[in-house]
């Protein structure tokens, strides 16, 4: 039986002033899938992620999450849809003036009726899930880059979303820390069945986590190939795809 798409991106075009960044982007993301959006620098990966998550509105086209259209939704509905997913930003996006516990508590205090004790317990559970037990009272500036990413992941998991978005999760991390973050992503996907959309150009990470990959190209301003990481690596028909996945300079 065909799985139902949780995220539907249809004919999305993005223009900044007269500059076209993306054209006619169409793809679906299915329940429980890890989809990795890859491409060279400046091809519009992060721009696309902003359109999918409603942080920016596409010039044309639609983005539906759980069947609800995010592109023409008013602020109220948009925020309601946004509460259903979590995002891990490239530079973590943790609030610098708050401790890790306060970062996570912010969502729980604002959007649930949990008591203070219950919130405190949930904070411990989430921090423990990402391997940060005992760090609840640390400020983001007091922990390493890899720990910041983990803490941001704990915050993204605060409301138990069924979709997680990642913008370059392994950027700025050493290979070992990046690999442990990959494992964490895989474990969350396998144990909770979360749907994940990851923007990355880290080939090792892509090979580790991706169920399916879409490759964006700067010149084509869109998707030039879709498939598994292995299929992409063996794709000799398209030189750009082959070069990208085999690290060959053009």
């Amino acid at each position, binding site marked *: 039986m065909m799985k139902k798409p949780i995220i539907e991106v249809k004919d999305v075009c993005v223009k900044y002033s007269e500059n076209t960044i993306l054209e006619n982007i169409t793809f679906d993301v299915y329940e429980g899938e890890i989809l990795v959006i890859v491409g060279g620098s400046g091809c519009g990966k992060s721009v696309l992620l902003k359109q999918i998550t409603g942080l920016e509105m596409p010039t044309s086209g639609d983005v539906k999450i759980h069947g609800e259209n995010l592109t023409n939704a008013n602020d109220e509905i948009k925020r309601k849809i946004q509460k259903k997913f979590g995002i891990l*930003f490239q530079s973590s*996006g943790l*609030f610098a003036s708050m401790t890790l516990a306060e970062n996570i508590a912010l969502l729980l205090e604002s959007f649930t009726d949990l008591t203070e004790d219950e919130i405190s317990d949930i904070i411990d559970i989430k921090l423990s899930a990402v391997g940060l037990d005992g760090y609840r009272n640390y400020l983001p500036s007091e922990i390493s880059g890899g720990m910041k990413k983990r803490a941001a992941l704990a915050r993204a998991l605060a409301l138990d979303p069924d979709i997680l978005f990642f913008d370059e999760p392994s950027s700025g991390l050493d290979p070992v820390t990046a690999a442990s973050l990959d494992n964490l992503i895989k474990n969350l996907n396998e144990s909770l069945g979360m749907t994940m959309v990851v923007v990355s150009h880290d080939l090792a990470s892509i090979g580790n986590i991706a169920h399916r990959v879409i490759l964006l190209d700067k010149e084509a301003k869109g998707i030039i190939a879709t498939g598994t990481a292995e299929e992409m690596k063996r794709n000799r028909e398209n030189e750009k795809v082959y070069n990208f996945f085999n690290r060959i300079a053009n």
Partner: protein
Amino acid sequence: MLISNKHLSLIKDEILSSKSQRAGTYFNISFSEREIVLTFAEPITLDNSEYYGIDALIKLINDKIEILTCDFSNIKHYDSYLILLINNLKELSKSKRLAINLIGVTPKMAKFIELFGKEQSAEINNIISTGFWENYFSHIGQLTLTGLTDVKLFIEFLGEIISKFFSLFIHPGKMRWKEFPFHLTKSGVNAVPIVFLIVFLIGMISGYQGAMQLRQVGADIYIADLIGISITRELAPLMTAILVAGRSGSAFAAELGTMKVSDEIDALKSMGFDHIHFLILPRIIAVMFAMPFLVMLANFAGILGGMLAALSTLELTMVGYLNEMQTALSFGDVFSGLIKSIVFGFLVSSIGCFRGLQVHGGAESVGKYTTAAVVTGVLTIIVADAIFTLIFQSLGI
């Protein structure tokens, strides 16, 4: 072509820098009828650049010369100056319509030339070739366009703030009130010493200046009128607003800019929070709330400063000064200053926040927009003050 050895030697001396005793060893020049051959002998590096001037080489080239040959076979050491030298020689050969031959180029050197010696793109050449006036007017045009775009965006931003501010009367819980006391302390309480000191000194300076003039016409007592009205109507609100623009406006721009650069604002939006309710309104309301109190304090400080100046230079008593102040000052004088202060507070804080949200890219942008927040803030306050003066005058306040 015949060139005497003496003539050749003279030209060589001119080509090679006279600064160095070793100049003659940097390259050799040999001639045939149709060809000039430059044989380089010493490292072609930035350190040696002064010994490779080729301007005078032009004098050696007559109509019969067709080929310029550069021999690099003795060169073991080189850096990016090699690229510069080759480019200069190529330009020279182009202008004199000579064929240029580079000989003795090792594969390693060829790779280096290939890597660093790429031709400038047409785009860059176009920029360089644009004339001064064209650049000047294009720059003015760009500044005007940026300014107009900023005004448009700021008006949109003000509209959003005002509508969300009024929505608080229906849903007060939307704003993050927890932040309000923090910003009130930072923008209001912490500004007390500097506001007091500056306006006290301004009052004192005005007092001394006014006293000197008034004494000449025997109108000593009117120093109280001068100080009272100028401080309460103009100087206290204006100076307080300028100080708040410098302290809080810049701080808001820097804080929000840094948050934007580190994805914190995007994170906030993605979590379903409204950044205007969460970050902007607590700051703006805190400044608007603090401003009248700061201006009251500034009124006191300015009048006190003026009084000290008056008492020390004129034959006045404190009671006389304060009695005259009471007679001279109307409710409208103080009230107009307080009304202005609330509007100035709104403008300064919203400009600070607006500039902070304009930040994009990296840390450099934070600095740029923080400066812009102060400059725009101060300019806007002064323009607004002029408008207020006209309005109050027409209303007779």
